[in-house]
């Protein structure tokens, strides 16, 4: 089931749907990544940063009180303890190191709520590489703390004033920048999305999560879990924890944002459940499942968790869902909120609202037996960033 590096696709999904100006950069990246991905020096250095800078390995914690409450033995993979407060840094450290190995001098990225941008700024600072982050002007106002964080760490945040002044416009602007500066600049994508080699490369960098789980669960239980549950926006934390188990007898649940319901209009979806309800299409350089209308116009997605609020999904997840290797599921905003409160109260861990979707699914599915006896939930990030949001909602 593992993919050959030479292929740019996962089944029919994936590929490289990008403007010609970017193709050479994509080709170079593919080549360079191929060159370094198994290079012992590169990997040793990456391991060093993952350990000493990011704080890996992250623990696998038996959540006793939650297990009792939900009725299944629950282990939490604690990506909330990674530097920056989420799994995002695993990827940006990998790409920043690769940037240095490729001899590039500049990193660009786009960010929505600012999580990926912050992780880029951290990695950029750690490696001393100039970092510029495109962000919709409206988002820079809504997320001014993350803007400030990025700036503190020496990154330049470029507010994008075109269009809706949100993520979509930031992506466009970052692409333009890359097109104009391909020789010197690496474009850092924050999830397992975009043209090949990004989905593969980001998945590989995030696979450290699942690799650690393999060792940790064997130490604790002497066997693999029956199931692994991860929230899924672009899908990087999910692929990161799933991939090392892909050939094992472990059920993999990708939980998307059910938002406020499965309703869809001409322009908007009230959810972000792309794997669950999306149709095949081409977006952001990849062939994948997409939330779109009958003409192929992309819908505005919606979720209480900014990190899940995406109309596409990683192509490998689309493929794995089609062949039945992963199970796409979803949790609604209200269910995620409910599970958020459970984890805070029962375990003293404040999860990201993204991760709360995975918790919520376990809460509702545990009694069906579908998850087996031992389940690992990926707590992809901490929820400090979400306190204002939760505070604003009725429980």
């Amino acid at each position, binding site marked *: 089931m593992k993919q050959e590096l030479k292929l*740019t696709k996962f089944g029919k999904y994936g590929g*490289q*749907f990008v*403007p010609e*100006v970017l193709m050479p950069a994509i080709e170079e990246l593919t080549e360079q990544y191929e060159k370094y991905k198994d290079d012992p020096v590169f990997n040793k250095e990456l391991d060093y940063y993952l350990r000493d800078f990011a704080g890996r390995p992250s623990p696998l914690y038996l959540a006793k009180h939650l297990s009792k409450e939900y009725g299944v033995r629950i282990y939490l993979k604690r990506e909330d303890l990674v530097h920056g407060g989420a799994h995002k840094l695993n990827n940006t450290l990998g790409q920043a190191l690769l940037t240095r190995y490729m001899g590039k001098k500049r990193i660009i990225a786009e960010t929505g709520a600012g999580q990926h941008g912050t992780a880029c700024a951290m990695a950029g600072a750690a490696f001393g590489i100039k970092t510029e982050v495109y962000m919709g002007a409206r988002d820079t106002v809504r997320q001014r703390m993350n803007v400030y964080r990025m700036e503190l760490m020496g990154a330049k945040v470029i507010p994008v004033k075109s269009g809706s002044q949100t993520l979509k416009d930031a*992506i466009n602007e970052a692409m333009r920048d890359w097109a*104009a500066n391909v020789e010197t600049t690496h474009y850092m994508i924050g999830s397992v999305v975009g043209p090949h080699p990004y989905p593969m490369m980001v998945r590989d960098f995030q696979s450290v999560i699942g690799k650690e789980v393999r060792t940790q669960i064997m130490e604790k239980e002497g066997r693999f879990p029956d199931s692994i549950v991860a929230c899924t926006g672009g899908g990087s934390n999910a692929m990161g924890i799933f991939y090392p188990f892909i050939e094992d007898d472990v059920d993999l649940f990708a939980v998307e944002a059910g938002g406020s319901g499965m309703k869809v209009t001409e322009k908007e979806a009230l959810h972000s459940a792309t794997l669950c309800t999306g149709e095949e299409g081409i977006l952001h350089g990849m062939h994948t499942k997409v939330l779109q209308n*009958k003409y192929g*116009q992309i819908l505005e997605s919606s979720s209480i968790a900014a990190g899940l609020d995406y109309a596409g999904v990683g192509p490998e997840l689309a493929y794995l869902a089609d062949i039945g290797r992963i199970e796409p599921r979803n949790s609604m905003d209200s269910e995620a909120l409910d599970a958020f409160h459970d984890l805070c109260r029962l375990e003293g861990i404040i999860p990201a609202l993204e991760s709360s979707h995975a918790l919520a699914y376990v809460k509702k599915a545990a009694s069906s037996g579908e998850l087996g006896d031992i389940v690992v939930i990926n707590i992809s990030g901490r929820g400090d960033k979400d306190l204002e949001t939760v505070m604003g909602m009725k429980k």
Partner: protein
Amino acid sequence: MKISDKFNELKKKREGALIAYICAGDPTPEGTKEYVTALVRGGADIIELGLPFSDPTADGPTIQAGIERALNGGMTPDIYFKIVGSLKVHIPLVVMTYYNLIFKRGLEKFVKDCVSFGISGIIVPDLSAEESGELAGFCKQYNVDLIFLVAPTTTESRMKRILAEGTGFVYLVARMGVTGARKDIAASTRELVERVKTTTPKAVGFGISNGKQASEIIRTGADGVIVGSAFVDIIASGKDVPERLEALARELKEGIRAAGK
């Protein structure tokens, strides 16, 4: 009209081509016909008519704004083909759109619709030569040109592949970056024109906004000039749009003629 016929005709006149881009339905479906007619009157040889997509990652802010106006104005692929069908122009029409709209309509249906409604060529900025096989098959089958872009960064091996794959004309991206009217013309254009070794006509785009620039481009050896943002800017202004579109087209065409061939 076939694109190759147009270039042959111009070749005989020792004249470069003016390829004018606007986005269909910008700002409303009703205006497009009048704007196209104005461009033709001004001297456009080929019309590149954008079919707006919600996430136009390969376009600059100017054209992106036009696309947004069009979508807000209610444009859909169905309306697009209706507009195209109603145009009574006698020059080649080219559709420029993103791959998802083609994919969603169905590749074959899209190409057949192009034929039915009088479109001679297709440009898909987010479709790399690598991914184009299937669409290229239908284009060949239905005798529609599939036009590719090449950039200064395009490697020799990719160049070969693209030139083998594309028909109609080759779209040369004058300089790095994405569409958007620029003030001067890069020296890299001549170099690129020389690197593109093909008998297919070469048209240069991205950043051309006046007759002088158009003239310079033709002198680099190009067979045509593609102008988009400058026209979209006029539409955005909303003032005397048809007149000013026609005037700019005329200025550009005169610049092109002045350069000879």
